């Protein structure tokens, strides 16, 4: 299952849709389908979403994956129709959050209209997600997708994901190379709006240094927890796992964060799955595998599977490259 075979879409679809199989196996199939990204894969994701009974983790990861599968106008139309339907239904907040973000990614003309539903939203996660999505749609329009700021998003160092905010152009405006300034923007919930704070965050990712990682991690500490929302923290956790060359220094921060029983489930989830892509030692997460919160224990199981997958691939790589 680790090596993705483009001829096995129906197999991956069956695994993803089999409610009796363990969640990590199904999530693995989900990433395989996301990688293949054919129209057939989209249908498999839609179906899996519809039949899933209990796993918020699986449902929101499906929405996340859809927001990254905008391969063609035909893909976009299908994804848009599906997400519009999801946003018209009742789903857990984390699922709706991911659906809104995904819709914003594929730049639907209807996005702003659809978000009216959440105008009086009281859930912080959803309110903030809608705020960011509206800001992103407006930014793309105002700057011609970055052009007037001299940004070419497809040429960024990290260009493999659709993200909720662009970085600042630190080549044109060198002050944004200053990690201390960026850190102060991220932590300042009074003078900067969340979109600007996200932009500072994505600028740090683009800088891609250990200092940038440490600056991002300040969002995760207990002393800054009042200034940093759950949504912001979960985004930090996500981004850190992408920064393969430099992320090691963030591991202690993430482990502290996930151990905090008061931390929001969306944060603990994202931290756990990110750690799965970062650490080799499962015992560091052992305490979460039977956690009473379903999304926490499922995230832990998924993290374990990432660790196992990575070890298996590394072993295969070692054999192949030694020949």
């Amino acid at each position: 299952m680790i090596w993705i075979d483009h001829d096995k879409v129906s197999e991956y679809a069956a695994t993803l849709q089999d409610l009796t199989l363990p969640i990590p196996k199904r999530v693995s199939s989900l990433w395989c389908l996301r990688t293949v990204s054919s129209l057939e894969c989209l249908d498999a994701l839609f179906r899996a979403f519809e039949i899933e009974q209990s796993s918020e983790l699986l449902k929101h990861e499906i929405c996340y994956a859809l927001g990254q599968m905008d391969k063609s106008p035909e893909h976009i139309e299908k994804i848009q129709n599906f997400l519009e339907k999801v946003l018209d239904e009742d789903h857990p907040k984390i699922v709706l959050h991911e659906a809104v973000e995904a819709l914003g990614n594929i730049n639907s003309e209807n996005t702003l209209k659809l978000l009216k539903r959440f105008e009086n939203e009281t859930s912080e996660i959803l309110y903030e997600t809608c705020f960011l999505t509206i800001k992103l749609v407006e930014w793309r329009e105002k700057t011609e997708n970055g052009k007037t700021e001299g940004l070419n998003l497809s040429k960024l160092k990290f260009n493999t994901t659709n993200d909720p905010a662009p970085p600042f152009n630190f080549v044109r405006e060198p002050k944004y190379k200053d990690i201390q300034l960026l850190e102060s923007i991220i932590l300042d919930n009074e003078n900067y709006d969340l979109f600007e704070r996200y932009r500072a965050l994505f600028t740090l990712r683009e800088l891609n240094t250990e200092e940038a990682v440490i600056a991002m991690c300040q969002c995760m500490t207990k002393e800054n927890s009042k200034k940093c929302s759950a949504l912001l923290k979960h985004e930090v956790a996500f981004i850190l796992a992408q920064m393969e060359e430099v992320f090691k220094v963030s591991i202690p921060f993430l482990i502290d964060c996930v151990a905090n029983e008061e931390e929001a489930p969306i944060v603990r989830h994202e931290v756990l799955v990110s750690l799965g892509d970062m650490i080799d030692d499962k015992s560091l997460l052992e305490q979460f595998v039977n956690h009473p919160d379903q999304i926490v224990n499922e995230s832990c199981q998924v993290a374990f599977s990432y660790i196992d997958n990575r070890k298996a691939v590394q072993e295969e790589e070692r054999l192949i490259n030694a020949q």
Partner: protein
Amino acid sequence: MEDDEYQFETGDAGSGGIEKVSAGSLKKGDLVMIKGHPCKVVSFSTAKTGKHGSAKAMVTGIDIFSSNKYECTFSTGDNVDAPLMKRQEFTLINIEDDGYVSLMNDAGDVKEDLKLPEDEWLKDVADKIREIFTEGKKECLVAVVSAMGNEKIISVKEGKDV
């Protein structure tokens, strides 16, 4: 973030050179250097072990000159070496008993230092060349590639009526 910071390196354009290609965009039939050998990709698979991080690509290729099989892995985000190939088309004039062929280019120059391919993976090409040549109804046009100082007949097609 500006264009010039993200330019790919390119090798020299002459035959024997290499160019950089993105490992993630490789597909069957492409050329890539595997462990120092110019190979044609015969199988390509990716592995994504988790939610983040670059996928790994496992590539199997056949050395276009020696026919040896090689395997290696890349990160799909890597830029990897691909042999720069020079491709020329010739008209087949004759096949000798020992497998050597006479080829002629557009300028009328004759080339007589190549054999029909004997490799298993090019057996179809060799058979087709013999077929077109024996029938004698159409011109037999063969493509010769050269890379890293080697040359080989790699494909064939029918030309005009003779």
